[in-house]
């Protein structure tokens, strides 16, 4: 009897082992290869996606660099325009100031000239008035002081020259 049990056991064991092997082979054939293919494809797909992402990232970085460079160039241009505008404005202001100062100096000079002219005119006028007054007074004084003796002397002096002609 024991021999029978052992051979049944061995038989079961062997059968089980065979079942497992067959099952393994079946599963391998039906599932393992497809799954392996699927995983490989998936891995390839993921790898491609990673590659594409890296390329896109590189492209984006390149575009960003170009944009930064362009922005900087534009900024520099704008700065240059601003600097030029400031320089021009300073130059214009300086010119305006110079012209204003020249005009002011000319106005002052003309005003001084006019004032001097007026002063001379006033002094000349006063001198004329004083002279006229002096002569008026002289006429009045002489009118009172001249007598016939003086007239006689004038007449005699004239006649002496008249007869000498």
């Amino acid at each position, binding site marked *: 009897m024991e021999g029978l049990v052992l051979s049944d056991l061995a038989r079961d064991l062997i059968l089980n082992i065979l079942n497992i092997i067959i099952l393994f082979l079946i599963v391998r054939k039906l599932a393992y290869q497809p799954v392996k293919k699927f995983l490989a494809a998936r891995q390839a797909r993921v790898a491609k996606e990673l590659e594409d992402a890296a390329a896109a990232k590189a492209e984006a970085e390149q575009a960003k660099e170009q944009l930064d460079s362009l922005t900087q160039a534009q900024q520099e241009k704008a700065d240059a325009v601003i600097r030029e505008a400031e320089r021009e404005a300073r130059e214009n202001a300086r010119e305006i100031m110079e012209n204003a100062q020249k005009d002011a100096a000319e106005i002052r000079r003309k005003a001084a000239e006019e004032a001097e002219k007026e002063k001379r005119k006033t002094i000349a006028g006063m001198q*004329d008035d004083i*002279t*006229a007054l002096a*002569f008026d007074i*002289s*006429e009045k004084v*002489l*009118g009172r002081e*001249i*007598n*016939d003796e*003086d*007239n*006689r002397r*004038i*007449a*005699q*002096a*004239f*006649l002496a020259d*008249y*007869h000498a002609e």
Partner: protein
Amino acid sequence: MQTVIIKTAESLSEETYRLLCEGFRKKLGEADFQHIVDPTLIGGFIAEVGGVVYDTSISSQLAEMQKRIKE
């Protein structure tokens, strides 16, 4: 006969006027004398003989001095 026009100041007497007429007569011969008294002359006289004017008046001399001072 020449005409002599003599303008005199008020202060010139008849005697001095006659002296003047005598003086002109000596040079011109007979002449027709006209006497005008002009107080503005102040002193002396102005005589006009044949278009020639002899001015010894004080007023003219003062005017001449005034003119020179202005210049």
